[in-house]
């Protein structure tokens, strides 16, 4: 926390006289300093109530999770206050109940793998469908863009659980898709789609699509189409223009969208629970299990910290990359 501050937003320019410029009234220097110090103190006081609530009900509890991951599980739920690495050990390893040999915890690892895989595929799917959608909105006449954008955000503001229900309605055995396929005679038996990995993937892509479209749109809106025109003047094909001009220009939006979709997918709880039918767990459900039936709070805490760590690595690499892209464009 050095004196150098990198606030995400710069203060509006020309709003206040810049004290860095040579000030003729040098005698007022200490007075200015004092006023400034008072101003900063005032700002902190103003922000304090929000910070207190956030510390008490958001950041503080996270530290407790970290502490709990190093404690001994109480068989009745909760913990015994005794240091143990058991929780962390169990994230990856399992002790065989018969011969006490130590092996990899296949169940955990397969759930990890499924979570990463499904989150990655969700991100990819939302990108494939979200990119043209965002492009479509960004190329509408100015006055209609807001309306199209609004149409994208409506589902986003409606309850996640209800949207998951809606997907369930569509893909279950007696659902719309199977009914249509059966009445048209394409299939004889309903295809089992609900309670599969496919259902979770579809549900997550459906639920998180707006999170991909919004940042994509934000960067596409700023796209300078004269560049695209220049590309065509230089005999670029449509595909070349897309690949060499448009995609590089909107890359920050792609990365932001990918991060915004990947993170909630990885920790998804509701969608896998409803659409996976309790058989196809993801990381979020595994964590819940340890606090519920599993009665292994330290393991649950260790898994939570692991998830958090993955997310933080993703976020930090994003911030780094975003910074570099900005600097590159100078």
């Amino acid at each position, binding site marked *: 926390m050095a004196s150098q501050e990198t606030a995400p937003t710069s203060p509006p320019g020309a709003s206040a006289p810049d004290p860095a410029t040579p000030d003729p009234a040098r005698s007022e220097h200490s007075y200015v300093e004092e006023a400034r110090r008072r101003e900063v103190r005032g700002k902190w006081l103003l922000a304090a109530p929000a910070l207190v609530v956030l510390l008490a009900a958001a950041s503080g509890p996270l530290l407790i999770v970290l502490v709990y991951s190093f404690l001994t599980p109480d068989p009745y739920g909760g913990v015994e206050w005794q240091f143990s690495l058991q929780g962390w050990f169990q994230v990856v390893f399992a002790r065989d109940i018969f011969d006490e040999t130590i092996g990899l915890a296949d169940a955990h690892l397969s759930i990890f793998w499924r979570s990463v895989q499904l989150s990655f595929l969700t991100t990819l799917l939302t990108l494939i469908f979200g990119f043209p959608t965002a492009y479509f909105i960004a190329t509408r006449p100015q006055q209609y863009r807001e309306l199209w954008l609004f149409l994208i955000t409506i589902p986003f503001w409606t309850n996640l659980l209800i949207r998951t229900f809606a997907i369930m309605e569509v893909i279950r055995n007696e659902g719309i898709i199977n009914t249509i396929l059966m009445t048209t005679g394409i299939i004889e038996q309903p295809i089992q789609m609900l309670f599969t990995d496919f259902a979770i993937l579809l549900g997550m892509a459906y639920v998180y699509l707006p999170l991909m479209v919004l940042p994509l749109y934000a960067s596409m809106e700023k796209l300078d189409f004269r560049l695209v025109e220049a590309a065509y003047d230089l005999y670029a094909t449509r595909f070349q223009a897309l690949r060499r001009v448009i995609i590089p220009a909107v890359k920050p939006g792609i990365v932001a969208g990918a991060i915004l979709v990947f993170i909630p997918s990885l920790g998804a709880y509701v969608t896998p629970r409803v659409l996976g039918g309790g058989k196809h767990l993801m990381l979020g459900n595994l964590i819940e299990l340890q606090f519920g039936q599993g009665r292994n709070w330290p393991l649950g805490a260790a898994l939570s910290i692991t998830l*958090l760590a993955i997310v933080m690595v993703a976020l930090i690499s994003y911030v780094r990359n975003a910074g570099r892209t900005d600097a590159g464009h100078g």
Partner: protein
Amino acid sequence: MAEARTTSRPFSVKRLPGFTTVAIICFVALYAPIITLVVYSFNAGTSVAVWEGFSWRWYAEAWQNEQVQDASIRSVIIASWAALIATTLATMAALATTRTRPYRGLTVIYALINQPLMVPEIVSAVALLIFFAMIKVSTGYSGLGYLIAAHSAFCIPFAYLPIRARLESMDLTLEAAAADLYATPWKAFRRVTLPLLWPGILAGAMLAFVISLDDVVITEFVKSAGQDTLPTYMLGQIRRTLTPEMNAISTVFLGISIGLVTVFFFLNRRRK
């Protein structure tokens, strides 16, 4: 719209083949499941699959279901408190973080405010479960306070964003003029800043309310026995299949959320 799409224009730099088709598919796919859900909530039969005619039956049943009534009232109480608290605190925080030169600790404030957006919800939920369990043991209190505190915290960033956006686009000279006319800082705030800021505050409060109303995961973990909100009640009810009653509740819920967001959208639009 028609003018922009005239086919007489042979080549448009903005056109990319197939993109419009995919976009239309996306919009249809976004709305089709929701519309299906709404349509089937009016189905007369017990089956959720076969259409047996129009009826309000499931709405009536949901309306008379006491658990649904309790959960709905609880949801609204929590969301109102959370929106009120989060918006007040977010307004103060936004005033503290905008229209100022960077100062020591500003990044810390930003990081704290945005924290609920960055930490996966399940992790926050687990953290609050442990934390509140500790408090419950030592104080014995098990009221709605925990849920209100948790909801207020994760609603702060949502209330903060529109308020900050509004503040940043506001003209500083008006306040300077008020000060020139001997208004005290408080007077200038109350008579100049606050009225100008009002749309942002309203938008922030609405978003906070909707976000709180929609929350499933954190509520599911934090709630004590018998403290179901509407979403957690619905999550608990669904085991293997949906009942038409769930469709009816979902539809009403959907209507409220969409209504609020639409009002917000048009209010915002007219003010611009």
